[in-house]
């Protein structure tokens, strides 16, 4: 995780599935100083419902701390997974990094 201005970036790659549950949970942690979080999952090749659960937990915690989250997803499988799970409106998903950062600065600036 590296801090860039007030936007923290959390990066995860590869397959986000059940065997990496603990790793995901440890990585998806809020830091006190971050005003917004960019969750870079653009190098994730596969995701399952375990990942969705961890993401939800993270986003709920962030919402409690009034921290906006933008999620970068590139893999079509991941995008469709979110749709199938009915969580399309639960996450702020972007495919373009610029859009994501733009959204976050808008939120954080508010």
């Amino acid at each position, binding site marked *: 995780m590296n801090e860039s201005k007030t936007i923290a970036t959390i990066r995860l790659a590869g397959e986000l599935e059940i065997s990496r549950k603990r790793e995901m949970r440890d990585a998806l942690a809020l830091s006190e100083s971050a005003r917004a979080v960019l969750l870079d999952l653009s190098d994730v090749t596969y995701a399952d419902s375990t990942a969705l659960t961890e993401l*939800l*937990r993270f*986003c*709920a915690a962030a*919402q*409690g701390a009034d921290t906006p989250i933008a999620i970068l997803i590139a893999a079509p499988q991941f995008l469709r997974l979110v*749709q199938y799970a*009915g*969580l*399309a*409106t*639960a*996450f*702020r998903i972007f495919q373009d990094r610029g859009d994501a950062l733009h959204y976050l600065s808008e939120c954080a600036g508010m």
Partner: protein
Amino acid sequence: MMPRRTLGPLVLTLALMAVVIVGLVVAGLLVRAIVASSFSNAGSIRVARILVADVLREQLDEETGIRGYGADRNRAMLQPYYEGRVGLPRSLSRVARVLERLRMGEALKTLADAGRTNRRWLDEIALPLLTPKPGPPSLQLRGKALVDHFRADMTSIDMLLARRESSSDARAQRAILLVGLFALGAVAAVIVAALLFTIAQYRLAVRLEQERSKAEEQRRYSAVIRAAYEAEKRVAQTLQGAFTQNVLPEPALLGLGATYLPAAEEAKIGGDWYDAFELPGDRVLLAIGDVAGHGIDAAVAMNRTRQLVMSCALLDPRPGLVLERVNAELHRNQSPMVTAMVVLVDARSCEFAYAAAGHPPAVLLEPGRGARFLDVGSVPLGVLGSAIYRDHRVQSMPGALLVLYTDGVIEHSRDVVAGEELLLAAVESAAQASPATIAAAIRYRIFGDGKASDDVAILTLRFAKRTEERAAIFEQASQMTAVAGTRTGHA
């Protein structure tokens, strides 16, 4: 039909009993034979002993006769001698016969010896005396020895006979005892066999009973399952049929409309719902929701959510709070996931606040502006116990149109983006219709006459534009029958 397993012990028992019976019969016969032979033996022995006594008597006669003649030289004295001499060999042979029958070899030898002794006495003692020559006096001595020897022989034969009698008795007693024991054992065996048989039968009966009760239980279980199935179907159909024909309220300053199009595929129970009710202070609460899944769980969740929304809204109509309360309750009951949106509308100020839970964003069309989505990211109800739902306030204007809908409206072709664009266009084109028919117009614009693959519900609200329009709307609304109800399912 008796199972093979019971036949074994039964046959065994019968065989055992047959053997025992045969054994008993044989034993009985044996006992009888032994006893009979014992008796006949005893009889023979007694006869033999009498005969031995006869022999001794006859020998005594011989002796008496000879002695008498020896002393008197009177021929008349010889009578007993002659009698004895005739009778004794006969008696001897009769004894011999009995001894042979009794198989007393030892005694036979003694008897033969006695016979020889007697003949010697006759030859050496009796005969010489009968001839006229006077005999030497030592004859008498020699005679006595022979006679003693003869007597001793016969006495020993008698003793042997006596011994034989007693041993025969003992043997008979032993045999009877053995047979008696055997009979007892046989009876015991029969009893044991009968016991085993009874136990086997009992066990079999128990097992049969167990299997019968198990089969009965299975039957009852499947009957219960079947009944539950039927019950579920009945409840679902009841819910289906008993949807409240919810007449949309006709608040002043607002025009409400709605439409509901059930899915084209198999009749699903549960699904979309919408509610609209007036609150004090010229306010209206709109709610729309979508329960995923089918069957009784979905129907129950949908009903519960509807009621929760209503009761929470009556408590405190702030949309975010309503959703938070409903979410907590649904999460607690491990309900299926529900998406929902709640909008609190102030008719006088044209202001509204909304909160969403995983629901597709509402569409707002304001005069002079294109239709746009009121986007807000949110988590469906029942997923996270601690989800936070916030109010989003929008200050709108008279003439504005707010459209709530369920995802069947935009996901009909799985291309959500295209679906969304189509919806916006449909809203714009249907905006000029009367409030009561806008929803139907939007639906027609998207689906035409066709059917959707998912439930479709659309709820619209229009802020009345001008006073005249307001009055017109009011009049129109009061003449319209309800376009659609709040359905819990569809036939």
